[in-house]
């Protein structure tokens, strides 16, 4: 079992996310995370899908994705040859001043940004690999996490190799 990252270019129209997620459910594949956003030409969207499985499972996932009419192109991303990023917003309880300064310090170390401050809380925006976000969460957990949201990963292969719709 391992974690695999797939990128898919799909038609950017209503119902496509449903068709993709439905296929995962029906074929008994496990999605760790799925993110969708429009591409530079508005009629294509890019999905980044993280799946758990072995080699045979991932081969099937790729083929089943390609089989969907609304999926234009699928590519497997090698984690070692890709940039993999996720963004998280973490609202931490910081009523006392020690907590405030600790959390600010951790945020600085993680190159996070403090995007909201109130009397008793802060929201820190952290970007990075999923493991970096996990590490940050572990550090601030003792202070009390009031709310937590992460985007799921987006990923892109390094170098000139690219996933594009052929004209």
């Amino acid at each position, binding site marked *: 079992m391992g974690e695999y990252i797939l990128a898919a270019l799909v038609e950017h129209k209503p*119902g496509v996310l449903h068709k993709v997620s439905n296929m995962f459910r029906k074929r008994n594949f496990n999605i760790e995370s799925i993110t969708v956003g429009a591409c530079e030409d508005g009629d294509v969207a890019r999905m980044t899908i993280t799946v758990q499985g072995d080699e045979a499972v991932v*081969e099937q996932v790729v083929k089943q994705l390609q089989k969907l009419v609304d999926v234009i192109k699928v590519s497997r991303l090698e984690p070692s040859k890709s940039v993999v990023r996720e963004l998280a917003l973490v609202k931490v309880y910081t009523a006392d001043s020690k907590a405030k300064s600790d959390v600010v310090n951790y945020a600085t170390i993680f190159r996070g940004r403090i995007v909201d401050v109130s009397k008793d809380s802060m929201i820190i925006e952290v970007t990075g690999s999923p493991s970096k976000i996990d590490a940050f969460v572990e550090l601030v957990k003792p202070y009390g996490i009031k709310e937590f949201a992460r985007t799921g990963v987006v990923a892109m292969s390094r170098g000139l190799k690219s996933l594009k719709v052929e004209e």
Partner: protein
Amino acid sequence: MSGSQALIEALKREGVKVIFGIPGGAIMPVYDVLYDEKDIRHILMRHEQCAAHAADGYARALRGPGVCMATSGPGATNLVTGIANAYMDSSPVVAITGQVATHLIGKDAFQETDIIGITTPITKYNYQVRRVEDIPRIVKEAFYIASTGRPGPVVIDVPRDMQTGIADVDFNVKVSIRGYKPNVEPHPLQVKRAVDILVGSERPVILAGGGVHWSKAYGELLTLAELLMAPVATTFMGKGVIPENHPLALGCVGMHGRVEANKAIMASDAILAVGVRFSDRTTGKVDEFCHDAKIIHIDIDPSEIRKNVPVHLPIVADAKYALKAIIDELIRRGFKREKSDWIRRIEMLKKECEDSEPGGDLTAVNAIKLLRKVLPEKAIVTTEVGQNQMWASLHFRVLKPGTFISSGGLGTMGFGFPAALGAKVAVPDVPVVDIAGDGSFLMTEQDLATSVVEDIPVTVMVLNNSSLGMVAQWQRFFFGRRYSHTDLKGVPDFARLAEAFGARGVRVGSLNELEQVLREAVKSDVTVVIDVPIPKEEDVLPIVPPGRSLKDMIC
């Protein structure tokens, strides 16, 4: 032009001659157009499930698209079993459903159902019309997707305001779907490698499936089998891709496969699998399926490769093109195998397993063998699901490719009769017989009304053991004869039921009587239901117990 007019015009441009359907509130504007339509025959069914099955039977008889139509809500959901059935057996059914008006969608309006959501996992693709001017493109794409590549059902959901809306519609549309480009031609290098394996093998077997039917690769299959001197086993869906009286034909493999077919494939050293998906019913325990054989897998759907079994060599292509390429390569190499030890072994196996002539008691097996004797080669046979189907698979020899229609993947009881109606509409000049069981037939028998009113005469041979027979057999074999809810208690009287619909109903008491009635039935201009009482405990044999290897066949 209204959306409804555009829809019917677009269907006509796709060559649609027949629609199986039932009107209802949310599809009435389309039916209003059909009222004056001369070029399309609309057949009013009595249940939407039958509309879908009839369209499926029509599609399989012609190996081209079949169309069904229903209203929104319950009309659409009644189609669902038929759509799922078409999906599992890769049949190009185009289902058109009415839908509530777009401003009502999502409001739980009267007879609203999310048919797009419901049918997504059981269709090749589905559409909801959102603009009247899209109708010609959607219809064109729907037929293209349904009938190319690996065929499959497509749903077009048409909200009521899209049916009544007026727009300038342009029918000069071209299909260009960037995410859908089936690969038809085989890769030349893979073909060479396949030929290397086949030429080097001593005990080759061809395993042919439903894909050969859809690709109409009958001629190529036969030529290749004879060149290679390779016996041809089929999956259940592939039954009848080769005339089953051909010396190289082995019949079906699998759970209720023929002994010679299961033995031959398990003894093979190379399998050329074409248009099959290695279902659990075909392979038995998959880890023990043909260890010693190198498997070449030809399929037009890349996702079938290595889905269920490991293969040595995949060829993603249309069966006809792939087989042709292999034949050409064999010819190029000047290869033609003479009768080998393998073939002599196959001949012996076949001799051991030869069916006897029908005679003696009125049993299901005798009735089916007798049916073959009575029917002309070109007759089409459909089946229901259960024992009747497996007896037909084992003992009804298909002589003309493509004349056997049955629900394989989904195993839908009630399929055979409406499918027979669809097949008869498609090919009116040949006799069509549904080999039925009493349990299955009662699931869709209300369409006897359709057969009578629409003048679609077929023969229904009900093998009546007053049981849900296959379940009862499993209870006998695997559940200590605990017949939990499988006794149908002799109800109804099928002959009288048929008569009530205006069809002919006969109960026979002997093989001789059955023969006489069958001879009349296939010439009858009204549907004939023949009630054939069979022994309650007649079993389908052989059987491979579920989850076991094909080697563990009980004969």
